[in-house]
């Protein structure tokens, strides 16, 4: 499906995208963004699901199971924490919309 050179193209473009999206982010958003990108790599959950879904040995099933637990923890925990952190920006942001964008 994804052959070698194409994989490299995707890798390169995704890396550019990630870099440019983050560039020039204000300091106050560093921690929420770290948390947000932590949530995004929670997508590892779907990989772990696949790994568990096709495992047949006991060892494979055990490791796959652990993988899915961890992946789900990453995804759900990452979401909850990020959401809580950004919630605070919203509350102040909406109260004073005129000055909402600073720095």
């Amino acid at each position, binding site marked *: 499906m*994804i052959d070698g050179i194409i994989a490299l193209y995707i890798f390169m473009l995704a890396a550019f995208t990630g870099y440019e999206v983050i560039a020039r982010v204000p300091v106050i958003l560093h921690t929420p963004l770290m948390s947000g990108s932590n949530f995004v790599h929670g997508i590892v959950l779907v990989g772990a699901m696949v790994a568990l879904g096709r495992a047949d040995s006991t060892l494979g099933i055990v490791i796959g199971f652990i*993988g899915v637990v*961890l992946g789900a923890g990453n995804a759900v925990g990452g979401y909850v924490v990020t959401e809580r952190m950004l919630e605070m920006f919203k509350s102040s942001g909406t109260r004073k919309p005129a000055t*909402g964008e600073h720095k």
Partner: protein
Amino acid sequence: MIQDLLPPGVAKTLVDVSYLLTAFLFVMGLKRMSSPVTARSGVVWAGWGMLVAGLVTFLAPQIAANYFLIVTAILIGGVLAWWTGKRVAMTDMPQMIALYNGMGGGAAAAIAAVELYQGETHGLVISSLAVAGGIIGSVSFSGSLIAFGKLQGLIKRSFRFRGQQFVNMLILLCALVAGGLIAAGLDASPMVVTIFFVLALILGLTMTLPIGGADMPVVISLYNALTGLAVAFEGFVLNNAAMIIAGTVVGSAGTLLTQLMARAMNRSLGNVLFSGFGESTAATGGEVSGSMKPIEASDAGVMMAFAQKVIIVPGYGMAVAQAQHKVWELSQLLIERGVTVRFAIHPVAGRMPGHMNVLLAEAGVPYDLIADLDEINAEFETADVALIIGANDVVNPVARNDKSSPIYGMPILNADKAKNVIVIKRGQGQGFSGIENALFYLDHTRMLYGDGQAAAGQLIQAVKAAG
């Protein structure tokens, strides 16, 4: 298999298209998260992407069995994470991020382990990627757990000895040799695979243990980027485009973010990883002459009540004391009296970037009262009172003029330029860098001893009493 319920080919197309949508939502989400105004909606966008990907994966052609186990595992991990994530205090956020990030690294390592224990030959490139993702994921897993332990206060000491870097190098080398054997197909026996993962996990421990708590946010950010990379690698192994794109985006965004954070703290990444800070330098602070002059809350309150302009400098102590609400109440009182009040935020005040902004936002302080270091530094000269609450290192003038100091060169808030300085802290406790603060000994500085919240409460009374 669920996907057999659909016409042939439909399941695969559905998965492919959904993953495309997921990748789109993730990128848009991160984009929105990088501006304060849209940040909140960003995580919601990304959340939808995750939901779509999670649901549609049940239809993935590769999943043949174990549906029950998958659902159970998701519930276990999800519910635990939900519960902890909802309960944790704002000040403990960094360690929770570390924890969840470590879980992601562990999941990536688990995927690698399932693949590698199977012993199938995938070709050199795929095997190498599986191995690379495995080692990175494992390091991120065990390293993040240590970071969690340190910030949570479970691990108090930093374990450090001569030649530590050398030992780490040795472990890394052994892990790489084992990984090389596996990837090249020379010896992919369960034995070697086990050794490989054990070494990688140990490496994460030994790399992270010597690093001081002050540097943890940077380290967590680094492990976050590494987990992203591991996820991307395992995505290539599983031929999963959503993982490849999301992982790579996080890998590159996280690397940049790590650099930005290190720069905001005036540290280089190499410094963070290979030399301890806060620990090793604890003893080097030079002595400062003079004495600390205490002040009563009532006097301090009167001083502020009749000031024209007050600049408040919050620091880690305000977070510990959860004093932000009282501080805002105090500010409102002052504003009602016609005093100009501004909050001066140092980029590394507190224990995570943006720590103070998050707390002040929680208390409801409007954005336009909050100013960055660059904006406000010139204004201290015109302030009658600089009220420092639980901040220490970020107002230490030593950074400006003592070349031998470990914080020399860090930009600081020029609170010493204000006409009067009031410092709220509990006692002689030092800041994170463990050095003396020359500001506390200045002629126009007064110390208001006490817990942050209590002291702010007394000031409120004092201002009210000032009539």
